[in-house]
């Protein structure tokens, strides 16, 4: 029983990072109908930026290293805005295949760029979070993934509020529903897209900054996270932002349970079986109620 509980908790905590990554992918898809295959590389970018900030100094105390989160998000948000202005704005007219290929090219090039700039070394600044945990009886909670989990939940709540209540959220949902109609009603779709991209990439930066205390940073690190994020997004229902958070957590649990009780090698396959089952039985996604986006 302890083992089962521990496995589920581990899964939820791992799932936090998947959820953060998935949220960014899903937001962009929901509003812009674009799958950003370079999202993993933006997570990687966030990790490198965060590592650079840790070079400035790590304040004492268990959570001192987390000061880098905010500046990392600010920088990645800026990169996100640039990404939209320089590439996506123009690429929006190209149609699906060129867009997919654009982000794939960016992903390949980004890995190369990271190696050119930062070298191929594995980087992980020594810090007290790495390996730290809280114990509750026999159950332990890893601090690093735990914080990622809490922030994923917080971001999900913020996102739900933002999409529902704020002016931007309302505009974004209108654009997601029908760009033409929204524009006729006076919504500036470019502005919505710019903000969406910025938030999405800032979320990638957040995910990156939250992983660096316990995961090595290296040029191709993004790939390892992003495939899970894509699966979470699809299982939840493409474009369903909040569902993607649940999707990420669910995948974390499946991964943890298969790894604990069967074989971690099979967890990819187990997740894929779930994925096919969802496609066959609930093509609109596990967590999508009606045909609604966002």
């Amino acid at each position, binding site marked *: 029983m302890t083992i089962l509980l521990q496995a589920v908790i581990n899964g939820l905590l791992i799932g936090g990072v998947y959820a953060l990554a998935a949220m960014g992918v899903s937001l962009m*898809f929901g509003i812009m*109908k674009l*799958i950003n295959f370079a999202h993993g590389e933006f997570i990687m970018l966030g990790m490198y930026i965060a590592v650079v900030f840790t070079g400035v100094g790590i304040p004492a105390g268990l959570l001192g290293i987390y000061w880098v989160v905010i500046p990392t998000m600010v920088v990645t948000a800026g990169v996100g805005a640039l990404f939209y202005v320089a*590439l996506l704005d*123009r*690429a929006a007219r*190209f*149609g*699906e*295949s*060129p867009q*997919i*290929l*654009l982000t*794939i*090219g*960016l*992903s*390949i*090039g*980004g*890995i*190369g*760029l*990271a*190696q*050119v700039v930062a*070298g*191929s070394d594995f980087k992980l600044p020594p810090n007290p979070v790495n390996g730290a945990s809280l114990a509750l009886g026999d159950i332990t909670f890893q601090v690093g993934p735990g914080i990622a989990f809490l922030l994923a939940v917080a971001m999900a709540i913020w996102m739900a509020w933002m999409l529902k209540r704020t002016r931007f959220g309302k505009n974004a949902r209108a654009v997601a529903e029908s760009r033409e109609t929204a524009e006729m009603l006076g919504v500036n779709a470019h502005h919505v897209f710019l903000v969406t991209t910025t938030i999405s990439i800032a979320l990638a930066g957040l995910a990156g900054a939250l992983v660096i205390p316990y995961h090595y940073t290296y*040029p191709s690190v993004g*790939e390892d996270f992003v*495939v899970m994020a*894509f*699966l979470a*997004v*699809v299982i939840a229902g*493409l474009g369903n932002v909040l569902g993607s958070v649940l999707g990420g957590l669910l995948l974390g649990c499946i991964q943890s349970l298969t790894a604990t009780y069967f*074989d971690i*090698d*099979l967890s*990819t*396959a187990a997740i*894929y079986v779930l*994925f*096919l089952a969802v*496609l*066959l039985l609930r*093509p609109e996604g596990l967590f999508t109620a009606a045909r609604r986006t966002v």
Partner: protein
Amino acid sequence: MRSCAAICAMLAVVAAASFLIQDSYILGVMTVTTFLAIWGQSWNLLSGLSGNVSLGHSVFIAMPAYVTVVLFQTWHVPVLAGALLGIAAAVALAAFIGAATLRLSGPYFALATLSASAVMLSLILHFSDITGGPNGIPIAFTEADWTNLEFDHTRSYLLVGLGLLCVVTIFVAGFRRSRLGFYVAVIKSSEAVARAAGIRIALVKVVIYCMSAALTAAGAVVYVFYLRFLDPGFLAGLTLSVEIALFAVVGGTGFLAGPILGAAFYELIDVVANARFGDVGGWDVMVLGFSVVVIVMTEPRGLCELALRLVRAGGAPARMRSVQREAK
């Protein structure tokens, strides 16, 4: 049809020219390019013509490659027979994945196929007793014997590849003029319109997915005997899947010559960047990736379109214009 004849003539010229080349490296690069072009062309049959982007075509390379080689090495099944079984296995796999995912729209399909290749890799690694797992399977060269797809000269693989590329190109050209080709064109335009026109979309898509898988697999079984080594990370990896998609899009999905030009261009950038910058890590990959970005941003319809535009701007001779009309 004229563009198809022109392409086959060009490939024949390449085949003839290969006899003037002795450098095994250049022959090797030409061979690799040819097989990449075969896969790009096969991919285009599905994704370019129907608009469903597959990012998992490497499963149709890994599957037949492993089936053929394992059957040959373990049970001494003749290579050609094993190759047919391998192609059949790839088609069955395509029917299975396709039936589950092709009912859905583009992005789902892209992600579903992408993860299919991840799963294929994890299964190959897991069942290492059969597949050799991460060690891969070396294919020892015994003697030149075409029935075992063993040739003692790289050029032979190049020539077989060029022949296969011709066949695939003719097939794709013929397909575009066929009943099914018309249906696919309607589906690409709009699935709602296709449905309203009485076209069974799911069936059509699964059928062309299977065709695309079969052509890809046909290239794969020859290719692995050129490579003489089954590397799971490469054959079933994400990179190859993604690259195959890149070829057609870089070259231009709407053109018969698109995937071939795209594969040639991509491989050229790849080997040149590797030779030029290979001693300093990262540069070659960076150049490769960002050149794709530059091409997509400059001409999203691909290099063929770019070439046509340049020809047009430079006062195209009448014959070129007719080729261009036909390519459309």
